[in-house]
């Protein structure tokens, strides 16, 4: 049998030894959107031992121009991204163990999934979850590789607990306005470039080439041909509540509350109930089918309603596609799920 990694082992900083190491390592990829799927594909092709992949969303047609694991079929069937990702990744490499979770990640459920992980790859689209990842990274001493992209821009940094500053050192609080595909659009190559930098750093860490890690924050604009690195010698804040001497991991202790999110790049609002609950699906299906065709798979029930498409997840979340504003989504939600008497808290 031909060695499928022969040309990767021939790259001298990895070699046969690095390849063997890679095949014993376990990474968590948080988010299976554009960056998550690009990183997952590269690392699974590279022969990583185990991947835990977490995503709360379903595949949409407007994802396809940049989210490489998915096809038109999965957009039509509204397959959850984590499930579609696992299916494609196993066709690429059946030797990699892939644990896929359709899950709205928070501090509590992530804390359970993060044990024994060697590295976290950021495939998220918002800073709320990144600040949670950052606290978990510090608490469990697991490095994480930040990546973000919008328009033709991208940025990335490799956070190594005990060695580099942490995200909370760089931003004293969660940035209120970040560039996203909603504000700036997004082109595929900006995603691929950001993910290429992330995966390269991941390969260095996982093959124990720690001295080769990039120590600066990298920022680029692939359309306008700009690239800049920023040194981090003065980045560390000794008073930092996430990585300093008197740390409290503030983002691990948030109160659970129902809240409303606007998801990246989809004119979609997510409503999450404050406590885990199961809906009565047969009741909902009966109620909804007067408005449009109701479809369901093992993870999600979808239905057209006026100009919206509702996706009701078994974990209680409801996505309202086509809703641009939170109030609009809230009133739709209340029409169908009013009996739940949710105390909806709007997160800004």
């Amino acid at each position: 049998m031909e060695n499928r990694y022969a040309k990767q082992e021939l790259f001298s900083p990895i070699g046969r030894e690095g390849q063997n190491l890679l095949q014993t390592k376990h990474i968590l990829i948080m988010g299976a959107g554009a960056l998550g799927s690009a990183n997952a594909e590269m690392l699974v092709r590279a022969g990583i031992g185990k991947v835990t992949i977490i995503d709360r969303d379903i595949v949409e047609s407007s994802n396809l121009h940049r989210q490489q694991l998915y096809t038109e079929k999965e957009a039509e069937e509204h397959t959850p991204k984590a499930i579609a990702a696992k299916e494609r990744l196993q066709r690429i490499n059946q030797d990699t163990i892939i644990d896929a979770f359709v899950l709205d990640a928070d501090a509590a459920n992530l804390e359970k999934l993060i044990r024994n992980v060697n590295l976290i790859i950021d495939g998220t689209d918002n800073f709320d979850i990144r600040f949670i990842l950052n606290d978990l990274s510090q608490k469990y001493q697991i490095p994480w590789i930040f990546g973000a992209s919008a328009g033709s821009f991208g940025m990335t940094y490799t956070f190594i607990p005990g060695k580099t500053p942490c995200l909370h050192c760089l931003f004293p609080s969660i940035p209120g306005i970040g560039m996203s595909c909603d504000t700036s659009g997004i082109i595929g190559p900006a995603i691929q470039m950001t993910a290429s930098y992330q995966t390269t750093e991941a390969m260095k860490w996982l093959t124990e080439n720690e001295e080769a890690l990039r120590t600066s924050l990298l920022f680029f604009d692939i359309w306008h041909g700009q690239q800049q690195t920023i040194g981090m010698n003065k980045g560390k804040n000794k008073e930092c509540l996430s990585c300093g001497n008197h740390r409290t991991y503030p983002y691990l202790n948030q109160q659970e509350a129902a809240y409303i999110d606007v998801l990246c790049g989809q004119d979609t609002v997510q409503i999450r109930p404050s406590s885990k609950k199961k809906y009565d699906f047969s009741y909902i299906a009966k109620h909804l089918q007067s408005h449009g065709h109701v479809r369901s798979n093992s993870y999600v029930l979808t239905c057209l309603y006026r100009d919206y498409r509702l996706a009701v997840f078994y974990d209680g979340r409801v996505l309202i596609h086509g809703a641009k504003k939170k109030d609009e989504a809230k009133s739709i939600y209340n029409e169908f799920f009013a009996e739940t008497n949710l105390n909806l808290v709007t997160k800004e």
Partner: protein
Amino acid sequence: MIKVLFFARLQEELGKDNMELDTAGWTIDELKNWLETEYKLDGVTQTMTAVNEEFTDGSHILASGDTVALIPPVSGG
């Protein structure tokens, strides 16, 4: 003189990617507040800042010849 470089969204809002300013002795925070008022630059106080390609916080005092880079946070992915 201080050279200020603008990246990403800030370039588009300003219509240019750099300016020269006579702001030696100011802190980074003072510079950002002034830019926000003067050019109606939304969210400039939330940008990441590098002086001479090294990350710095808002209390850093600018010296003549410094190059300041203002980088808006990117959240998408």
